Every structure is written in structure tokens, then in C-alpha cells.
């Protein structure tokens, strides 16, 4: 019989109206990397919260090294050596790295803080595991990847040897993901056990030893990674076959819909321009992708095109109309749909109901209002139709408060709103971020359908797979400039990577001038 460091046996956790975990068993071996796979809402986070003591299960028990333990809160979990990196980091922004790491377990002598001691320990740990951080940097000043290292160091500082990572790669760049994988392998060699929550199959295949799959709160199975493949895992997760390759027919691009001409956007934080002298065109019936590592000016460029921020120089034309200085409402009416990068900040009013959010861009149209009064019945019917068409699922239908919906369904609601609105151009910024495989497949299909219907699509994506699979043409951005332009079927991921990291560039500026 094998020895397990942690056993969660027959865990059942109910919430009013739903069984979030239904008789789930998960066994973690010492020194293994164990992936926990499932779609959004499958019960992964609930199960981990049970292990971390945030919830008490109705049924089932937890054993550590074969003995039953009672975990009543994060503090108990900590004493058992269980640490967790949450998906949304729990850091004090205005504290330094060191202060955050020791928070709650400050070494002191008669109430006086002993920072020296703490600093030595942190530096020793960061050297040992290759987690480079500056102990005196302020959290608000360091990158997201760096913040994650701080979270990891927090666990190490507390001598945890069972580490839970809740979707750790969602916020990282491809390079940072590779580094994290390396760090995780290092931990496992050290004998630390890792629980790794994710829905990205590539990561599981590359780093995990075993994988437990949940679906809709139920236990589906545990498999050895060596004996399985992506297709099997995704079938277990979604319950059906998933098509990884996007079906797309060749299609001639039509007339120019969006024309961006020598656009420059000043940076808000530094004196450099975040977008400098960028020109490109998007035609009807094509998907153009802005690829690049996060923070190379894509966000700023899109904000300039969509009107969320001002343009310092240059011009933007939509359907032949100059919209450089136009208010957002005018852009929207001229034919721009926008799936924003941050769906909680921009895309949705979270405290509004689903039906109110579906008309967020159209409430002023005569269909939905009469003399300034909103036509509630029409809004309701419209929301019901759209929800059916785009398979938006919600607890109470049109009156569901959007905050209570899952991320995937929130994104579908935005997609439905923006695609159903009259538009010639769709600007989609990381439309699949944080979504599970099934939802990603859906979004990709919709993007291609939009293109096939003769609309122009400008896609911004950080995922190389997405960039290569979905788009027709790829523009690579590096430090605010476009450094390469490719047809997606004529370029390899390696080649793109070189351009994205700034190691290679070709002069596309001349090309686009020539096209004019």
C-alpha cells in the first residue's frame, strides 16, 4: 500500500441549491505534482478551500500521513504545512516584498521586529529555489510574475511542504510560465508535494505526475500523466470530444475597415511612448492578431482605437470615417464592437442584472426605449433570445445579477452583446482569458464566424496557440512598435517567439506605407 501525505476522502460540500463537491476523493503522494483539472465551476476551488480550512465539508474526512485531521481555518492548515497561492494574490500593495512575506509570522524580540533575521531567511530561500526577488521592492512596483514569487516565498517562509497553486499561470507570460514550471519541478525534487489547479492541458502534460479530474462537482477519475494524452484529459474534463484545431476556410480579405495610421500614444508612467508610430489596416473578412508579450503596448493601442484613451499623434479611420477624436458612443455607432481586456472593469456592470448588461451598448436605441423610458419587456425578450443563441447560463435568467455568474458565462454575455450589435469591426482583447476549454472553443468559433460573415476582426492575444490557430494575419508588437507581420500559415511559433522577445525585427513600416 502506498503512502499518501494528504488524503481527502469522500468530501461532500453543499451550498444552497448546489452540490459543489459530491463525494470527491483526492490522494496526494509525497513529492508529486498533482494536477486538479476541471472546467470553471467544476468544484476545484471549493475542494481546495476545504483543504485550506475555509469551508467545512458536510461529509468526508481529511487525513495527513494516515491520521485524521480537523482543519478549521488557514491557521490550522498552516500548522499542518499546507500553503496556498491564491489566483488573486493576497498581498499588501504598499508594503515591501519582505514585509509581505513575514506578515502574520513576524520574528520579534519582546515585540520589536527582527527584520535582519527575516531578511536572511528570505534571501537564503530565494537563492535556494531560484526565486529572484528584491526584498525591499514595493509590491505595487513589481510585475505580476514577481508578485507570484512573493506568494511562493510566503509559503516557503512558513516551512510549508504541501503547496497549493490555484491557477498560477493565468496571469503569467509564456516565459514566466516556463520558469514557474521549473520552480515547481525543483520543489518536487526537494520532496515537497504540489497540488496544481488548472484547466490548461499543456501545462499538466509538461509538469504534472498525476491528474485528478472533476466535472460539475463530481469525481471523474485520477490518471497517470505518462499513460494519458491531451485528448483523453479534455474528454474527461468536458465530457465530450473537444476540437483543438479551429476550422477555418481560406477567404479573400475585402475592403479596408479599420485603418490605423502612424498612431503614437504617450505612456502614463514613463516618458517613453507606449505606442510609437504604429500603422496597419484590418480588412473585411480577415482576423488580424496583435501578438506580443504582455506590456508591449497592445493594451494602450487598443485603448486608443476604441476611445478609452487619447491618441497623441496619428489617425484612426473606421469604415472611411475619421474617428481619431470621436467619443466612444460615435465609434460604437459607426460599427465598432469591443470585447474588452478586463471584463469586470470595463465589460460589465457587475451589480446590474444580465438583461441590463445585454443592452449596455444599446439601451438608448428606439427598440429599447420610448421617450427616455426603458421598455422592460423588450429588454427581457432580447436578453432571453441572446442567452439562448449564445448559450449564456445563469441562475435566475435575465434577472440574475451578473456578479454571481461564472467567468465563462460572463464572457459569453459580453460576446453575445458585442456580436449581436450592428458592427463592421470587432476588437477582441484576450477574449479567452481565464476560460475553460469548452468556452475557448466556443469563443474561437464565434470569432471565425464573424470573419466568415465578412466582418473585420482585430484580435489581441498573449496565447501563441490562439494567435496561430485563429488569425489570418499576425502583427507582432515589441516595445510599442510593430516589429513583424506574417501570414499565420507561413510562420512557426519559434519564429514568432524571436520577434516577440525583440531578438528579430523586420521593417514593416515601409510595407504599410507601400500599401497606402
Amino acid at each position, binding site marked *: 500500500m502506498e503512502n499518501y501525505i494528504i488524503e481527502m476522502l469522500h468530501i461532500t460540500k453543499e*451550498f*444552497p*441549491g*448546489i452540490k*459543489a463537491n459530491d463525494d470527491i476523493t483526492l490522494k496526494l503522494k509525497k513529492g508529486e505534482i498533482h494536477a486538479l483539472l476541471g472546467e470553471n*465551476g467544476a*468544484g476545484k*476551488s*471549493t475542494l481546495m*478551500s476545504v483543504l485550506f*480550512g*475555509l*469551508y*467545512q465539508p458536510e461529509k468526508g474526512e481529511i487525513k495527513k500521513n494516515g491520521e485524521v485531521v480537523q482543519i*478549521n*481555518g*488557514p*491557521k490550522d492548515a498552516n500548522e499542518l504545512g499546507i500553503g496556498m497561492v491564491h489566483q488573486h494574490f493576497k498581498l499588501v500593495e504598499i508594503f515591501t516584498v519582505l514585509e509581505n512575506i513575514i506578515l502574520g509570522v513576524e520574528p520579534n524580540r519582546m515585540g520589536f521586529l527582527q527584520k535582519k533575521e527575516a531578511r536572511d531567511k528570505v534571501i537564503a530561500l530565494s537563492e535556494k529555489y531560484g526565486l529572484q526577488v528584491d526584498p525591499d521592492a514595493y509590491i505595487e512596483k513589481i510585475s505580476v510574475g514577481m508578485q507570484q514569487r512573493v506568494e511562493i516565498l510566503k509559503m516557503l517562509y512558513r516551512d510549508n511542504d504541501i503547496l497549493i497553486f490555484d491557477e498560477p499561470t493565468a496571469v503569467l507570460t509564456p516565459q514566466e510560465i516556463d520558469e514557474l514550471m521549473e520552480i515547481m519541478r525543483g520543489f518536487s525534487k526537494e520532496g515537497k508535494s504540489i497540488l496544481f489547479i488548472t484547466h490548461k492541458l499543456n501545462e499538466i502534460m509538461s509538469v504534472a505526475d498525476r491528474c485528478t479530474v472533476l466535472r460539475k462537482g463530481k469525481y471523474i477519475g485520477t490518471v497517470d500523466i505518462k499513460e494519458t494524452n491531451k485528448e483523453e484529459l479534455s474528454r474527461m474534463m468536458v465530457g465530450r470530444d473537444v476540437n483543438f484545431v479551429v476550422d477555418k476556410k481560406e477567404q479573400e480579405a475585402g475592403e479596408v475597415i479599420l485603418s490605423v495610421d502612424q498612431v503614437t500614444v504617450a505612456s502614463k508612467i514613463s516618458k517613453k511612448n507606449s505606442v510609437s508610430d504604429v500603422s496597419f489596416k484590418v480588412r473585411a473578412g480577415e482576423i488580424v492578431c496583435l501578438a506580443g508579450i504582455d506590456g508591449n503596448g497592445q493594451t494602450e493601442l487598443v485603448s486608443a482605437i476604441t476611445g*478609452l484613451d487619447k491618441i497623441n499623434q496619428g489617425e484612426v479611420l473606421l469604415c472611411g470615417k475619421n474617428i481619431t477624436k470621436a*467619443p*466612444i*458612443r*460615435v*465609434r*460604437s455607432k459607426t460599427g465598432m464592437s*469591443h470585447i*474588452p481586456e478586463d471584463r469586470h*472593469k*470595463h*465589460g*460589465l*456592470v*457587475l*451589480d*446590474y442584472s444580465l438583461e*441590463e448588461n445585454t443592452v*449596455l*451598448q444599446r*439601451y*438608448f436605441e428606439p427598440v429599447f*426605449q420610448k421617450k*427616455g*423610458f*426603458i421598455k*422592460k419587456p423588450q429588454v427581457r425578450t432580447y436578453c432571453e433570445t441572446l442567452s439562448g443563441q449564445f448559450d449564456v447560463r*445563469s*441562475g435566475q435568467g435575465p434577472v440574475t445579477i451578473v*456578479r*454571481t*455568474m*461564472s467567468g465563462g*458565462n460572463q464572457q459569453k454575455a459580453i460576446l453575445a452583446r458585442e456580436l449581436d450589435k450592428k458592427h463592421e469591426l470587432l476588437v477582441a482583447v484576450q477574449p479567452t482569458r481565464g476560460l475553460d476549454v469548452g468556452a475557448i472553443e466556443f469563443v474561437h468559433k464565434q470569432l471565425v464566424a464573424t470573419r466568415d460573415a465578412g466582418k473585420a476582426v482585430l484580435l489581441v492575444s498573449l496565447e501563441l496557440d490562439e494567435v496561430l490557430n485563429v488569425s489570418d494575419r499576425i502583427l507582432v508588437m515589441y516595445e510599442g512598435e510593430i516589429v513583424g507581420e506574417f501570414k499565420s500559415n507561413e510562420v512557426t511559433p519559434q519564429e514568432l517567439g524571436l520577434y516577440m522577445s525583440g531578438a528579430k525585427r523586420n521593417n514593416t513600416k515601409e510595407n504599410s506605407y507601400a500599401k497606402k
Partner: protein
Amino acid sequence: MQKNKTSPSLKDRIHTLTSSKGGSAFTATLLAIGMGLLFGFLVMLLASPFNSVPGFLEILLGGASRLGDVLYFATPILMTGLAVGFAFKMGLFNIGASGQYTMGMFFSLYVAFMWELPTSIHWIACIIAGMVGGMLWGIIPGLLKATLNVNEVITSIMFNYIGMYLVDMWIQGNAVMYVSSKTRTQYLPASAQIPSLGITGSNVNFAIVIAIVIAVLLFVVLNKTIFGFELKATGFNKHASQYAGMNGKRNIILTMVIAGGLAGLGGAFAILAPSSIAGSSMTYEPISVIAANGFNGIAVALLGNSSPIGIIFSALFISYIQRGGTLATMFGYKPEIIDVVIAVIIYFSAFSMLMKNTLAKILHNMANKVHTKDAENRTTKDHKKGGK
């Protein structure tokens, strides 16, 4: 008192009420009121044990014998409550209701004394003038916020002082309005006074009807119109409203103008009220004090959860309990006792939702104690996540 009346079915009622959003806010408010009253009783018990029971009963029931006064005193705080609550729906904290209220008073007084109009419309003109005065005092912080992004809290606090001193100065400098020997304004001409509702011994007048109609209108505006849709969207998430192409600047200015107008109306209603003593009227005393009714508006709005309908009831309640508090002085208590009670009620209502959740949790789960606030917050958050 309300609790005693409904005690047999209270549990069931609360249960059904909590199922809706507005209902659970209502339950939470009732809980806060209960705790506030209890706390007030404890203070009274400590201050004077023997008088505490009759004194407390007077607070609870005294208002019932003076319903006219309850309505009369509720009118201005209902308006300032709306002024605060309406702006709050947009995400603006209009702390300047006092200044707008005082401006409204002055504009009303000016039209009352300086304009000669037919009796039938004089008082209406005075009310409208009050509204314009308040609007003027609301639009400036609104403009500054919209164009230069100056925090409306700071500007409107400053405008409370500017408004109050300006009005004091203008009144003292106007020989027609001001009686310097009595340090107050003249009695208002009868034509400028709002028609009384005819309850003897009370100043209650037609203004309470107007105020309630306005509150209902605001409810309609907020919940049925495009403007309300934009306003609440901006209040909930200003980034999303920008993304959706709503005109944030225009809406900020408009909201502050309306809020100012509401507070101005409050001032007009207060100063134009008819007196129950023949030949006299309300007067304005320039004594360099910021009008308390503006700040009472904040309390009213908080207790009413910023909803216009809620504000009608919270204004009536606060006015009711204030009347009772005045009567408690018969038992040797200082009238300030009621301000303590109101303050505690507001204080509890600020976190009553939290208390209600905790209470339910304790009842449901006696064995498992709540660990930390952090853990609890996370629980409710994840709960929602898992519950979809």
C-alpha cells in the same frame, strides 16, 4: 415598537423578506433600529434609572401624539436625504446638502420679500426660487468634478461654509428682510407661505405631499428611465459606463444639479412653512451655524439605503423618534439623548448587513465558529462562485 407589533409572525416575515434584495436591506435596517433603541435605553438607564422606562416609552410612543409635527419636521430632511441619496446612486458623496439647503432658503426668502406676486402663485414662485438656489450651489461642485476632477466631497464641504456665510451676510445687509433688533428676518408675507394641511397645533403643510411625490418621481427616474440606467451604471462601475459610451461628465453635472435642487427645495419647504400662531412665521437667524438638516440628510439617506422610497420612510422615522426625544425631556433627559440614539442606529445600519449574515451563520452553525473576517469574506465570495 415596530418589532412588538409584528412579533408573532416576525420570524416568517423576516424569512420571506430576506429572499429579495430590497427586503434583506429592510430587515437589516430594522435590526439596526432595534439595536440603536436598545443602546439608547441603556444610556438612559445609566443616566437616570428611575425615569428610564417612562422616558424610553415617550421616545417610542411620543411621536404618535404629534403626527402633524412628525410630518412637518420630516419634510426638510426628506428632501436633503434625497439630495444625498440621489447623488450617492451615481457614486457621488454630496456632503454639501447643508449649503444647498441654506441657499435654497435664501432664494425663497428673497422672492418672498422682494417680489410682489399674486397670492395664488407667490408661494409657488418662492419654492421654485429655492430650488434654483440649491441647483446653483450644486452645479459648481459638479462642474469642478466633471471638468477638473476635483473631489466633490472637498468642494461641497467648502461650499457649506461659503453658502452659509454668504447668506448670513446678504440677509444682514438687507433692510427689508432683516430686523436687526431681533437678529432675525421679518415675518413672511402670508402669500409666500405654503398652504397648511389644517392640523391644529402643527405647522404641517402641503410641502410634505410635494416631497413624497418628488421621492416617487425620483424612484421612477432611477428605475425606469435611460438617465437612471446611466446614472446607476456609473455609480456601480464608472469604467464600464465609459466603455459603453455614456457621457460621464454630463451625468455628473446633471446629478449634482438635481441633488442641489432637491436640497434647495428642502430649504424652501422649511422656511416657507406656515406657522400655527397667527401673524407669525418661520424666520432665518444669521448665527453662523451650518444647517443641521443638511447633515441629517446624510443619516436619512444612509438609513434609507439611498433608495427614494426607503428615504421617505427613514425621514418619517427619524422625525418621529426626534419628536419622542423632545418629549423625553419631561422626564429630565436632555434632548441630545435622541441624537445619541439616532447616531447609534446609523452606526449599526452601516454594518447591519454584515451583522445579519453573521447572526444567521451563528444560528445555523453553532458548532463551527467564524474564524476571521478575511476567511469569512472569502467564504461568501467563493460561495457565490460555487453557487452559480
